[in-house]
């Protein structure tokens, strides 16, 4: 896997009004590496996702997601950063020129993106940040666009207490628009019962494929893991993107406050300054617990803060 070169931006104010990413902003590099909230101001999900993908793909040199088998298609000139295993040694020996071999997937990947649309996702720790749901929508749209450009069949499931939207995995044109519409049409839900959505998913994924769960994981871990384990048992590649607002990672606020769970009637009165350090430790433990549990079952787990640039989040998947 080649490394991704991340250009340095002098300032986000250097970016003009977003119209067309590559053509109109040749000098504005890598919009996928900007602050997500800044990027979100450029337009709707489609525009943002497209811009992110443009930027993201310009920084990498191969498909971020590989199929199960590949077939040689053509040569191209070697560029610094290309993996040497793809170097065509015969041409090098014959012509003393560096070419790498490029392959095309023989079989398309079937990917399903699961987006948590529960009430807890519609929360932001600061007005300047995207809500977890907004971040998840844009990230899911970008991811779907990448997959579709690789001619991978990509579908979508949104869920809260129940499955809200289901867009079966397809690779035909217009699929990305349907996916985006599915995201947009899903309102903020109430509680979160992930296992129900995951069970429903098993019935929708007849062939082995890729499952990407985008959620804040504020539900029962064991029940969710049971479902994810089942998918893994069925041969699916499972990726969990654990979204978290920076305000959830660190406790702060007034001297005393009553915090209320948006998904239930539960509340608790705390003094943030007293509990800040212990709360951080609890969050770290929880993240570690998810990571260890996923690793144990062969599930890829990534912790994503909502102030992380979309490109960085996509890079985690590469």
């Amino acid at each position, binding site marked *: 896997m080649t490394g991704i070169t991340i250009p340095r931006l002098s300032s986000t104010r250097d970016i003009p009004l977003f119209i067309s990413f590559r053509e109109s902003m040749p000098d504005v590099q890598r919009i996928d590496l900007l602050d997500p909230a800044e990027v979100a101001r450029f337009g709707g999900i489609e525009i943002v996702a497209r811009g992110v993908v443009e930027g993201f793909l310009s920084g990498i040199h191969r498909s971020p997601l590989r199929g199960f088998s590949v077939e040689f298609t053509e040569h191209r000139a070697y560029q610094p950063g290309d993996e040497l295993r793809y170097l065509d040694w015969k041409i090098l020996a014959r012509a003393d020129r560096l070419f790498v071999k490029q392959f095309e997937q023989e079989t398309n990947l079937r990917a399903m993106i699961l987006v948590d649309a529960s*009430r*807890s*996702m519609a*929360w932001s720790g600061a007005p300047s940040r995207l809500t977890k749901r907004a971040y998840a929508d844009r990230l899911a749209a970008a991811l779907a666009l990448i997959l579709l450009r690789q001619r991978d069949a990509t579908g979508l499931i949104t869920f809260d207490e129940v499955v809200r939207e289901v867009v079966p995995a397809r690779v035909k044109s217009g699929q990305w628009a349907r996916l985006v519409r599915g995201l947009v049409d899903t309102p903020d839900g109430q509680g979160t019962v992930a296992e129900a959505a995951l069970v429903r998913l098993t019935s929708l994924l007849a062939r082995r494929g890729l499952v990407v769960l985008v959620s*804040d994981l*504020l539900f029962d871990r064991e029940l969710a893991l049971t479902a994810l384990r089942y998918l893994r048992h069925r041969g699916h590649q499972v990726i969990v993107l654990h979204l*978290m607002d920076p305000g*959830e990672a660190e*406790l702060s*606020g*007034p001297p*005393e*406050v*009553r*915090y*209320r*769970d*948006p*998904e*239930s009637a*539960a*509340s*608790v*009165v*705390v003094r943030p*300054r*007293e*509990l*800040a*350090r*212990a*709360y951080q*430790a*609890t*969050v770290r433990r*929880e993240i570690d617990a998810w990571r260890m549990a996923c690793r144990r079952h062969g599930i890829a787990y990534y912790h994503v803060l909502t102030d992380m640039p979309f490109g960085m989040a996509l890079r985690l998947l590469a």
Partner: protein
Amino acid sequence: MTFLHPLALVGLAAAAIPALLHLLERRVPPEAEFPPLRYLSETERQNARRLKLRHLLLLMLRTALIVLIVLAAARPLFPTQSSSGSLHAPTALAVILDNSPSSGVVVDGRPALERLKGAARGSLTRAAASDRLWLVLADGVARAGTREALLATVDSVSVSARRLDLTAAVGAATRLVDAEPLPAREVHVVSDLQRTALGTGRAEVPRGVRVLALAPPSQAPANRGVGAARVTAGAAAIDIVGAPGAVAEHGAASVTLRVRGREVGRALAVPGSTVGIALPSLGPGWWMGEVVLDADELRADDHRWLVWRVAPPARLAASPSPGAGPFVAAALAVLEDAQRVHRGGTEVTIGDRPGAGTLVSVVVPPSERALIGQANRALAARGGRWRFAAAGTPGPIAGPVLPTIAGLQVTRRYRLEAERDGRRGTGDDTMVLATVNGEPWLVRDGRVLLLGSRLDTGWTALPAAPAFVPFIDALVNRVARGEAPISEVEGAPRVEFLTRGADTVGATVYGLDPRESDLTPASPALVHDVLGAELLDEAAFVAARFAGAGRRDGSGLLLMLALLSALVELAVATRTR
């Protein structure tokens, strides 16, 4: 334990502030959504015990901090055995600073008074605001005041011309401090403790009053001074006083007599002796001389003023009046032999009625009661306003003009009364010179001297007393001329003349008390017996001051504890989050 500022303890109510704040903080807190509530609940559940302990510890530390600060502000005083560097319980303190003339003696090049002032300053400096203070100087007056005021007084004190009776001063000071309702009462005697300064009797020291006396230097300088000087029979008699050891140390001292600035005689004298220096022939009038002694360590007593009157003898009638009685005639005969009076003049007559044509008449009552009216009419005819009245009660003679006859008994007398509405005359020429039982007995009424008793042993003991002839001498030579006696008064050496109109009629000579010249210190036993005082050297005196009521200020320790509490509170508040 006592408190210097007990009112500050009211601030202890502030100790309730942390608890009140804790209760007041139990208001309805603001609400906010927080999705990861499950993490928060888990965190709180795991830390509930620690948080309770932390809250309790912080509450206790903050309460203790306020209590410690308030207690420190109240300045707690703890009893202590040591007096150095500590405070003391409220004390009534009288400092007796003996600045009598003897304190002017120079010892090792330094006036003794400076050492005494230093000790007095030390006592007053250690006084606190809660103490009641007095300062007694040689004048015997107890000055009450603040520490600063009395320190200023001590700084301004100089050697006084007054002698201090230490026994009386200590007695008065102990009564003064004993009347104060304070926990401790002390009298500090800062004196050279002359043996002669301890008066008669002993000071009654009330129970609970400590009298501390600063011990004098072990060896007092041998001193000599002019104790007294008077003129008799054409010569100056000078008493030399001082410590007995002065003779061995210095030998005989040279005494010089100066009259109007000119030396007229010189003699050698030792303490305890009286030397005479002949006066030159001087004309009539008032003369002033100065006796000067060789300088020694105490200069104040090395000179003394001397005043005397040179006047011609009084001229009496050629033959004494039979009405005066035999004792007067005999006394006049003695005076005539001594050339104190001359016969054949008209200056003074003595009889039972005013002499016609004489300048001054000394009138005694007639021997017969029936002649009283006649005598009164004669007095009235002379222009007198005083007359003989009814018989008076017996009693002793009193009066400053003729001190030699004071106390002699009068057994029979007539009361002397002014004629006009009981007025005894208010003019310059009227003066009551002696009294018996508070009633006039000898009156000067213009040119008449009126006696209430005949000068006879049947009337008074005067004729039989040795003072009779000097009395007659003074009567005809001085009193008849309207002159007052030359008096000697304690004070800064000087002379003050008494005048009447253009005439000088008397003089007052001021000088030091001769007892000040004897610098021999009293023995410790005598000091203890007479003054009831503990005699202490300088180090012991410093240590013993306020030692009976030593208190250490605990506010510093409390402030340290408060600081420690604040640091612990800060650590608990920041490290236990």
